[in-house]
């Protein structure tokens, strides 16, 4: 994985996506909003992987859809190479589509069962004919299949003739076809067997170093995200609760939710398993249509006080008694933003 450069390729600020909840058959009244994504900000640098983790329903996939312009954002901005992504229309939007692609979660539904692999991987060239002249398409499609580790002779086969892992490779080949700069990976391995997951992850890693891709890697599995990510953002109920480098998040988590997530990662070594502290969260994730006041995690947090109900904690570098949280245990710069009034490191949750 390459080092992050100074200029971010994608800058997202206060991204909000609310889905209206309506009532009535003929005259629909809006009675509320599902706050799927509620003020998310992050930077993505060239050649970098940003991991986004969180449990089901926290807004990860909605974030991906909004970034892919499949859903219109309610508010917020996103700059792609310094230009406003959400203002693009027509030809500009088409050009943006060439630069940003998505790999979808389920390889069984993301490929049209009635199209051959050649048609599926070649579709980007048909939509953007300027990328490859007609005579070259077949060769390009076969090249792409070769790059993702499939037999280029199989262009005439249909998706059902491939296994889950192979299908996901077809999906990756389709996303690569237009030589994008950013690929949004929406849980690309969560539908695959564990043994296949590693293959696909390695493929994504190789492609990144080969083509200098930037990834936004969405997953609910912390282990999977760690494997590939340079930086990680933890989401809870539509908000980022903690962001930092892979090391900062996994070795020095500050937010109670991150700590709880990490403590739930299975540990293969039984001796280590006994030494680590388990945090069991009680209760369910509150409804995103009616999130708790103040800190959204307070209903399940063991540290919650009245302050948490009143004041929403901002995602910023936390200070405790004049000292930056994270610097007390080590001096190699573990300070990173977390959205908790009582942020503190708790190293024992990490195995």
């Amino acid at each position: 994985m390459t080092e992050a450069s100074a200029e971010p390729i994608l800058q997202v600020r206060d991204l909000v996506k609310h889905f209206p909840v309506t009532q009535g058959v003929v005259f629909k009244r809006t009675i509320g909003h599902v706050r799927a994504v509620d003020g998310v900000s992050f930077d993505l640098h060239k050649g970098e992987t940003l991991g986004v983790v969180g449990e089901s329903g926290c807004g990860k996939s909605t974030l991906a859809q909004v970034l892919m312009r499949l859903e219109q954002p309610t508010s917020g901005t996103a700059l792609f190479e310094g230009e406003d992504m959400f203002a693009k229309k027509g030809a500009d939007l088409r050009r943006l589509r060439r630069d940003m692609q998505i790999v979808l979660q389920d390889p069984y539904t993301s490929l049209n069962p009635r199209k051959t692999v050649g048609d599926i991987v070649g579709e980007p060239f048909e939509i953007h004919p300027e990328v490859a002249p007609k005579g070259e398409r077949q060769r390009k499609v076969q090249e792409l299949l070769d790059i993702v580790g499939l037999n280029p002779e199989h262009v005439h086969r249909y998706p059902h003739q491939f296994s889950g892992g192979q299908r996901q490779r077809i999906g990756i080949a389709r996303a690569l076809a237009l030589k994008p700069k950013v690929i949004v990976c929406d849980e690309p391995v969560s539908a695959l067997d564990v043994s296949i997951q590693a293959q696909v992850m390695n493929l994504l890693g190789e492609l990144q170093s080969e083509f200098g891709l930037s990834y936004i890697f969405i997953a609910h599995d912390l282990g999977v995200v760690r494997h590939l990510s340079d930086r990680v953002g933890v989401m809870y109920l539509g908000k980022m609760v903690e962001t930092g480098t892979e090391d900062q998040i996994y070795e020095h988590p500050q937010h109670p939710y991150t700590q709880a997530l990490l403590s739930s990662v299975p540990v293969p070594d039984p001796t280590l398993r006994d030494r680590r502290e388990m945090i069991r969260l009680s209760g369910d994730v509150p409804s995103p249509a009616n999130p708790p006041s103040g800190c959204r995690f307070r209903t399940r947090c063991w540290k919650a006080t009245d302050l948490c109900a009143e004041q929403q904690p901002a995602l910023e570098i936390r200070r405790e008694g004049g000292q930056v949280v994270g610097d007390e245990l080590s001096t190699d710069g573990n300070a990173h933003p977390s959205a908790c009034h009582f942020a503190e490191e708790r190293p024992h949750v990490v195995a």
Partner: protein
Amino acid sequence: MTDTGEAQRSIGSAGAAAQATVEAQDKASSTKTEKQRGLWGDAWRDLRRRPLFIVASAIILFLLVMSVFPGLFASTDPNVQILDKARDDPSAEAWFGYDHLGRDIYARVVYGARASIIVGVLSTVLVVLLGSVVGVITGYAGGKTDSFLSRFAEIFLGLPFVLGAIVILSVFNAGVAGTPSSTRIMTQVIVTIGVLAWPICMRIMRSAAIAAKQQDYVKAAKALGASHSRIIFKHVLPNCLAPVMVYATIALGGFIGLEATLSYLGLGLKYPVVSWGMMISVSQQYIVSTPHMLVFPALFLIVTVLAFVMLGDAVRDALDPKQK
């Protein structure tokens, strides 16, 4: 990570070497198929090998020839009445026997093919075209377009068929003196069936389109920047054809029967035009004494419907790559 990657690469290159030899062997045979084949090309190649398709096509071809050139198959006039021979059993002279007015049933069955097949096929085509177009639009667009067009379709769905047909056909023929020409009546019958039956096809198409448009491959196509027409024609429609095809093949037989109902009520085809539906509806009074009046036209109707059902099944299977 890079180590595993290299390991995979080397395995891959070994495999590629093995494939290269196979490729060389295949080269001669595969040059013709080298061109990108689509779903329809694959379906056609597959269809030609299916016995079901060949048998069904042969029957349909035979029926079509019979309806275009009935004179090739029967030498007697279907409307000549020999009252002496009324309700005579099948014999060497008249293979299918005579009806209650002493007309040769064999000749009538042969001459009746034209009207029955024209009405059946054309009204099915009309219903499927109308229903599919409106169904895809409502299913894909959703929202207000869907509500409006669905309610509009329900107006027709709410009309009882026979009542609706009586109203439409009597209005059409209100100012016409004497017997209208058979082409005119046939067109009217086809249009009436089309107008009254399209909402069923539209509902089937709509639900299939709604299911198809929510699939991830449509999302992926949108992310690639595909236009609406591209998504409809390349992704939604091919995945909606199966249920419509099943409906069409079943409906075809039903429509031939509907034409009979309308003729029986005096609204459909009239003398001198012959149709299987008219023959079947007349035969019901003689079903015990002269069963061959029912058996032969009904047999032809069944074979025709069966042929189209078989054709529809074969085409549907050929268009589904998973069935191969």
